[in-house]
């Protein structure tokens, strides 16, 4: 143990020479280890009227958002580069490189906020920080190593882009990109272990357990670690796509030539496609996480779903409603630039109708906000008629139908400028429609039947509903791919011919995704209530209470605003760097 420690400190010294941010991070990790002397439990903070928890909250949220940025965007970049390599289209390669350039700046932002977070934690929560380091110190060192590996790989990946652009060297370059993702994922897994430990510490842990006696692996592999890992990995794909969309929208709106507009229009579409696609599978990971939380502590689970946080899910429903509406809206506007899409126009109003009804049902609160007279008239806070829409069966049905509708929008988008030539084209279309009808029927059937069975059976029904929707998506795509083989074109997509409001829709999507991340983070963190480590280390500071939704939402908005302020600067820098490249070429 002691030997390892010296080795790690020695390595840390070597890193100190490498980069400014790393030294900051490594120092911050090292200092509290030396400071294991008796002292106050909490430090004081009072700048801008923020208390110590607000300070840590902002630092942690921003660190997380940037970390998600530098994890989500490389995933995106590597996939795009692969499409470029194996598909042979140069524009994909250019797109991938453009993203990697953004990463360089985003990377240092991540490190800076990470350092700020560590400083805040170690100065404002010294006792708790010492406790955490007592358990996790080795993993923190590994974290630093991985961070270093990740940044170095990123430098290689970006600066080697043009040098290794041909043949086998290009493949090696692509492998570098994959490595970048591997390091990033490991970094995330380590960080996840710390926060999930706070939520679900190993059951044998008590308040008297000395941190040094806790086995590192048992602390890392706690009950909610894996579910959070999967959930965050998927969410990062969504976030990466959304940020890419926002970047494209920003550049589209500020670009001056049609060529640039075409490029960024296409980029925005691609980012949005990936974001929405990954979003559809995200609820499953969330469901698993929720189950694990319930199994770890039923009290925690009920606090989350039925207790004082239950209203948070209404806000979440509201946000998801916005995501669905905005996502579809973007696709519908996009049809304006596809020759042949006119034939789908008449259906849009029906799809919109399904979506609006879906949002209404999805966001109907079970317990309604009402004043005294209204409650008296309703006979309780549940409405005798609309109360039917407030329960799980209705919501599952609504959200599944909304997913189906969104998928239909994508499908129309895909088929808009194609005229299939295969002989069974007519039968194929009929089959696709039949699949949609069957899925919708299954969803509705189980949704209605859910009212007449017990809770356990009802929970099982949601699986059938989702399975029907997913099976339909896979089946319909299969037919579609076969049908588009050798299809005639009705005309090229006129990239760039988009009204600006579509780009604002992309921006709203990105802001909503980011805010949603903050909100869900609040839920995850808030269900610990007055514990630093759930039922092990009590929070005895004045901020031990869990804030209500309003103040929490205000904090989240502040964080998201700072984030987009900084991201805006990164985007602007991205444009600046590009300009200098062009100018050099001209000269």
């Amino acid at each position: 143990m002691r030997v390892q420690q010296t080795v790690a400190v020695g390595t840390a010294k070597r890193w100190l020479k490498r980069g400014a941010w790393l030294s900051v991070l490594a120092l911050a990790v090292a200092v509290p280890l030396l400071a294991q002397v008796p002292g106050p439990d909490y430090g004081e903070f009072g700048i801008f009227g923020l208390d110590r928890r607000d300070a840590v909250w902002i630092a942690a949220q921003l660190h997380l958002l940037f970390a998600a940025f530098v994890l989500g965007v490389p995933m995106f970049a590597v996939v795009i580069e692969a499409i470029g390599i194996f598909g042979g289209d140069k524009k994909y390669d250019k797109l991938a490189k453009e993203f990697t350039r953004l990463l360089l700046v985003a990377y240092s932002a991540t490190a800076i906020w990470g350092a700020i977070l560590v400083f805040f934690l170690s100065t404002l929560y010294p006792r708790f920080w010492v406790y955490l380091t007592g358990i996790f110190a080795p993993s923190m060192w590994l974290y630093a190593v991985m961070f270093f590996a990740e940044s170095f790989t990123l430098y290689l990946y970006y600066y080697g882009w043009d040098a290794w652009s041909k043949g086998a060297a290009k493949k090696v370059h692509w492998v570098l990109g994959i490595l970048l993702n591997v390091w990033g994922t490991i970094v995330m897994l380590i960080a996840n272990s710390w926060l999930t430990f706070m939520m679900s510490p190993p059951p044998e842990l008590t308040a008297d357990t000395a941190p040094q006696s806790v086995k590192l692996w048992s602390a890392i592999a706690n009950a909610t670690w894996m579910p959070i890992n999967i959930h965050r990995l998927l969410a990062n794909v969504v976030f990466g796509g959304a940020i890419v969309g926002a970047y494209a929208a920003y550049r589209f709106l500020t670009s001056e030539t049609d060529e640039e507009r075409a490029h960024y229009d296409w980029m925005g579409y691609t980012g949005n496609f990936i974001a929405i696609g990954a979003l559809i599978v995200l609820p499953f990971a969330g469901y698993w996480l929720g189950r694990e939380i319930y199994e770890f502590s039923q009290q925690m689970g009920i606090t989350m779903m039925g207790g004082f946080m239950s209203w948070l899910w209404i806000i979440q429903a509201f946000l998801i409603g916005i995501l669905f509406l905005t996502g579809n809206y973007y696709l519908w506007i996009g049809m304006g630039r596809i020759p042949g899409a006119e034939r789908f126009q008449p259906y849009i109003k029906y799809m919109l109708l399904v979506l609006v009804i879906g949002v209404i049902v999805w966001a109907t609160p079970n317990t309604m906000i009402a004043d005294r007279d209204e409650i008296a008239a309703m006979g309780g806070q549940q409405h005798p008629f609309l109360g039917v829409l407030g329960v799980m069966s209705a919501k599952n049905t609504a959200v599944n139908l909304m997913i189906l509708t969104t998928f239909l929008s994508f499908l129309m988008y895909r088929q808009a400028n194609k005229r299939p030539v295969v002989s069974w084209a007519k039968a194929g279309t009929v089959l696709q429609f039949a699949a949609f009808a069957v899925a919708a029927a299954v969803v509705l059937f189980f949704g209605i039947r859910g009212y007449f069975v017990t809770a356990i059976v009802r929970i099982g029904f949601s699986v059938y509903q989702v399975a029907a929707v997913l099976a339909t998506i896979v089946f319909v795509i299969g037919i579609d791919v076969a049908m588009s083989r050798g299809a005639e074109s009705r005309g090229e997509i006129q990239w760039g011919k988009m009204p600006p409001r579509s780009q604002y829709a992309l921006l709203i999507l990105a802001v909503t995704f980011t805010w949603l991340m903050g909100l869900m983070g609040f839920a995850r963190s808030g269900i610990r209530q007055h514990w630093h480590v759930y039922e092990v280390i009590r929070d005895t500071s004045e901020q031990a209470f869990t804030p209500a939704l309003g103040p929490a939402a205000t904090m989240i908005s502040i964080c998201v605003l700072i984030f987009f302020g900084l991201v805006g600067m990164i985007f602007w820098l991205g444009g600046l760097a590009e300009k200098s490249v062009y100018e050099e070429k001209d000269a």
Partner: protein
Amino acid sequence: MKGLRHPFLQGAIVIAVGFVIFKYVIGYVLPVFGIASAPVPASVVFQYTLTVLVGVLLYMSAEESRWEKFREPLKRTMVDHDRRRLRGVLMVAIPALVGWLAYQNVKPSFGAPATLRSVHPAPPNQITYRGLPIELRGLENPLRHSGTLEEHVAVGRAIYTKNCVPCHGDRLDGDGHFAGAFNPIPADFTAPGTLPQLTESFVFWRIAKGGPGLPQEGAPWNSAMPAWENILEQDEIWATIIYLYEQSGASPRTWEAEGEEGAEE
């Protein structure tokens, strides 16, 4: 009827129809046909109408030519010379409307403010019953494993009639003689959101501890429900619970994760 084809008018009609449905049809027309309903709270009407408004705007702006047409009357009202009267009226009417709404919102009223209360707050893992600890988690109704259902229902009916009817009513619908005097009003056991959503142990906790035993999120609270642990024996409460479920036709929620948890440990 050429005007009806204009997108602006169509949109306005859709919003108006939506508002009428949410505000009046659901609350006042459905009961005429014997469907249980009640006036919809203003917050929900607002939420629904806003959703419809957003839907209309999205539809109108999803296609370029429609959007042009939709905006045309707005533009003309703002700039055309021959609409200056209308413009003048609107310039007075809109601020007045906003002012009126603001006044409505801030004027003092005698009603209690809208409250958010968790009707079914998270139960504790353990409660004490007259000082004796009872583990709520995984707790099942002991009477389900002994005696006959008829016996328990008979006992439960007698207890319910003696103790519960004045508030919760003889039809279990929360409409007893005293119900009107309470806020919040007594629970309606026939509603789908009450008994079928709960485990019997939850119901036991609520009966045993009553209003005084509600946790923070159950507040603001002035529930008149007594803590029945001081009056009834445990078995009497359990019998009453059986009666409630039998009489309302609902079946209790059962402990779900039980099997899996047992297997893991």
